[in-house]
């Protein structure tokens, strides 16, 4: 168990810098999820912590020890890979025991630790099998068992669930979380799946283009996204973002039309800004109370919810496209005009140029 402290870390391949100075402090036992679109540098960051990738600049400190120049085995970490990376010629038991064997543990100690991990992951019946005789979910468990038996200071997960089918992914997600809680080991977890990120994390690191855009708890990231990118990336369906500018107590849409703002003290008049509201924070109201009117162009029924895609009435040019998440009981059809209101306090304003939250 240990803290991790990442200070101003950079990574370059030749002249191309792919990670531009990320800093992160992880408390002991914390579960940190690094999330971002593919190519944002999240896996590279994890691999630098693991010691599989050289660090170009900055320092990584695990448990009070700078590990920049240490080999992976000296860093007291265990890693779970996306394709599991089980040794195909070894039995499940040997796969899990291999690291301990190299570390020179006694036979009895190895057996005791492997049995304990196997019991925890419910893979005892398969200990003598080869990996190829296991299903995807079982292999995933073995890969986790291999990390677990080493009792490392830090778990590193590199998209461990992306090779599983949707149902199994949900189940394994819960199990990973429970396992980490049970052993209380610090964990870094990389994923591109925002649901996984939200459900697993104590804190989220949202990365984009080699920069950590926001580091905070899942709810804080959801409620107060620091940048326009985070706002669009976290939440499904994505947040509606409209371009326009502030005029007195109103937000003037780029394509025409205005929205009333509750509090126009945000910005100086005429400044180009982005106005964001999540689909789930729009609700149907009587026509007289409507803040905006949505001309429905498409409907997706999900059962519990209905997603109404449409265009703002009054927005005649580009933009003004909006999604509203309405109760499943709402009866809608294409061509309707829906009177909608925004839940109080649920609007987000971003600077149009920097994308920063205002």
């Amino acid at each position: 168990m240990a803290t991790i402290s990442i200070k101003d870390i950079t990574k370059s391949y030749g002249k191309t810098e792919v990670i531009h100075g990320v800093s992160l402090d992880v408390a002991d036992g914390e579960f940190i999820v690094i999330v971002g679109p593919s190519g944002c540098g999240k896996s590279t960051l994890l691999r630098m912590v693991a010691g599989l990738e050289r660090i170009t600049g900055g320092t990584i400190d695990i448990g009070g020890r700078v590990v920049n120049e240490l080999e992976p085995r000296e860093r007291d970490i265990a890693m779970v890979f996306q394709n599991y990376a089980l040794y195909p010629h070894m039995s499940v038991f040997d796969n899990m025991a291999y690291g301990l064997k190299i570390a020179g543990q006694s036979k009895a100690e190895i057996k005791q630790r492997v049995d304990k991990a196997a019991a925890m992951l419910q893979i005892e019946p398969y200990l003598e099998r080869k990996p190829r005789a296991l299903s995807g979910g079982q292999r995933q468990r073995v890969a986790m068992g291999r990390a677990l038996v080493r009792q490392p200071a830090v778990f590193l997960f590199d998209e461990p669930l992306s090779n599983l089918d949707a149902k199994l992914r949900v189940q394994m997600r819960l199990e990973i979380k429970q396992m980490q809680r049970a052993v209380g080991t610090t964990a870094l977890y990389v994923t591109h799946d925002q649901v996984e990120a939200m459900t697993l994390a104590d804190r989220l690191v949202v990365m984009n283009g080699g920069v950590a855009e926001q580091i905070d708890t899942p709810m804080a990231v959801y409620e107060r996204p620091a940048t326009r990118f985070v706002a669009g990336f976290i939440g499904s369906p994505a947040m509606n973002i409209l371009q326009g500018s502030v005029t007195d107590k109103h937000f003037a849409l780029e394509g025409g039309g205005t929205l009333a703002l509750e509090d126009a003290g945000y910005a100086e008049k005429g400044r180009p800004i982005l106005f964001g509201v999540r689909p789930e924070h729009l609700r149907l109201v009587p026509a007289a109370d409507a803040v905006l009117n949505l001309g429905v162009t498409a409907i997706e029924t999900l059962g519990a919810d209905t997603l109404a895609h449409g265009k703002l009435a009054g927005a005649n040019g580009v933009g003004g496209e909006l999604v509203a998440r309405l109760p499943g009981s709402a009866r809608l059809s294409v061509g309707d005009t829906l009177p909608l209101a925004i839940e109080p306090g649920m609007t987000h304003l971003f600077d149009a140029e920097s994308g920063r939250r205002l």
Partner: protein
Amino acid sequence: MVEKRGFGTFLVHAVLIVGIAIVCFPIYLTFVGSTLTHFEIIRPPMPLLPGPHLIDNYTQALTQGITAPVGRMLFNSFVMAMGIAVGKIAISILSAYAIVYFRFPFRMLAFWAIFMTLMLPVEVRIVPTYQVAASLGLLNSYTGLILPLIASATATFLFRQFFMTVPDELVEAARVDGAGPLRFFKDILLPLSVTNIAALFVILFIYGWNQFLWPLLITTKPEMNTIVMGLKQMMPTADDYGNWPVTMAAAMLAVLPPVAVVLFMQRLFVKGLVETEK
């Protein structure tokens, strides 16, 4: 698979049987020859059924032979073939490991240098190689028989291609588990290469067994002769009439070890050639 019925099946089998007969007849004739007396063989027509002298001929071949006892020559051949096969595999798997998994200066140059030697088989470089072997005092020795034939570009290339299909994550998992380079080679890479090694072993053993020109040059004493060159020397030349039954028996004996290797390793051999699962 194309499904055949009636006449088609008959035709296919007929062709196969004729083919097998053509290939097997000379071998059968050799076997028959090894059970007859010398005069039965040279007086036409030669009998087509085995005679009663099987044990006599084989005993004579194994213990006395003509130039040297065949038993001795078989042993020489075996040592040479094993030495070449094991040596080639050991050297090429290590060089392939170095080329694929380590970054060092002139790595690609080393690879291409090895690859270029494909253009220089023994026959091309035989005179300088002989000169070197002679200067090192390797004539009439097992070292001299084996060493100059060990370097192998083909096997290196084969292992290189195989290693490149091993997933990178496996290497990384081993590094995280704490395995150093030698440990990784011994615990992970070598067990994964077993089928490839077996397939190569079969090919290289037969290659070594069938060497003719090099043993002919490097050995002058009869007791260092290998079986393949020994057979040639047992053939009657212009002014003698040889000893055909013993020669035939020696020929039969010469075929047995490669056949045994192929039969014994067949399962692994086929697996090694078709295996794709990692």
